[in-house]
């Protein structure tokens, strides 16, 4: 600390939350600064729409920061904010269930066979000009392949390999058993491998 102002870089998320609880607006802004990019990137890749991702990110921060008193410091702040954000994205995707179902199969499908039976073939999906623009913006086959995963797989793979979160934290964020998280990540990588196989050929 110097001249009464906190050295933000030296403070943990928990410290910053304590300062926010004591009414320091700068602490709120520091929490936003720390998580706006990873949260926005996660949401953008979940919903594949910049404007919507920004709305969801804003909604997530407003919800989290207005309820900062209910945050329990024994858990990671990152888990908390990602959990709120991921729930917002999943809720949104569920509301758009018809579209999601056509791509990813029923969210209630437990086995790969059930998912396949409830899903339309990705190749059969007519891409609108907007989709094409979005695909260009996302850039690259890997982005498109991640976008075609079912939402639960998408969250897992993004949290694991883009955000570098450990399995235990992903399980906490998504409220899933550890084994399920591992299975989802493994299946997601399998699907990505299949989706990207044509590039090899």
């Amino acid at each position, binding site marked *: 600390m110097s001249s009464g102002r906190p050295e933000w870089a030296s403070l943990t998320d928990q410290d910053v939350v304590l300062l926010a609880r004591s*009414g320091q607006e700068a602490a709120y802004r520091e929490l936003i600064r720390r998580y706006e990019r990873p949260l926005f990137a996660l949401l953008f890749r979940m919903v594949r729409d910049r404007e919507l*991702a920004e709305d969801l990110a*804003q909604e997530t921060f407003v919800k989290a920061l207005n309820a900062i008193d209910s945050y329990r410091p024994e858990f990671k702040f990152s888990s908390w904010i990602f959990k709120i954000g991921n729930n917002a994205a999943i809720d949104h995707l569920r509301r758009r269930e018809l579209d999601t179902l056509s791509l990813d199969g029923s969210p209630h499908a437990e086995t790969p066979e059930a998912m396949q039976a409830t899903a339309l073939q990705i190749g059969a999906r007519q891409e609108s000009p907007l989709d094409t623009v979005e695909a260009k913006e996302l850039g690259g086959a890997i982005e498109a392949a991640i976008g075609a995963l079912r939402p639960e797989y998408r969250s897992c*793979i993004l949290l694991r390999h883009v955000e570098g979160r450990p399995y235990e934290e992903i399980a906490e964020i998504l409220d899933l058993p550890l084994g399920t998280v591992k299975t989802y990540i493994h299946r997601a990588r399998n699907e990505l491998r299949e989706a990207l196989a044509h590039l090899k050929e």
Partner: protein
Amino acid sequence: MTRPPGTHLSPDEIDSWLSGNLAREWQQHLDQCQTCLERVRIEREIVDQIATLPLMSPAEGFSDRVMASVSVPDPFSIRSLQATRRRIFATRRSLAIAASLALLILGSMGGSIAWSLANQETLASVGNWLLTAGGQVAWLSLRGVASNVIEQPWYTGFRSLLENPGRLAVASGLATTVYLIGVLALRRLLALPTQQVAHASI
């Protein structure tokens, strides 16, 4: 850990390999098994590609837009609340006093509600008596004030002013002007400085 013959790396072992924590025994298997080697190579490629996805930021002003909808608690009220809490929990004695006071207040409130419910008639008669006596006191006071005003030496002049509409208008105009000048002077005195005050910058 012993590896059953003919088995390949499981997803967990592939994860361990990706994180650089694969057991030596499996590492030896990997050196000899082309299937597993190809599998981990592809997994590594996918993970590397995911890791190179571009970083993204929301549009400029995002933080301000969020903060516009966030209510930051007032530091002063939090501090005074915390100070009160600290004082209460400072010693056993202070805690006992605070608890006794809280019990006394809650007990009195409870007792008062219970008594009121059991003695509604008494309460009604006391209320009526207070209303009558209060009305009489108010009427007597009004009469006293009026008699006092009438006996003042300036009352005759004031009464003649009320009887002459021209004079009344001039007097009202003068009074309004004086009032407005007073309001303007007060606003000027209470206005915030328009320029930055050196010692007030945070």
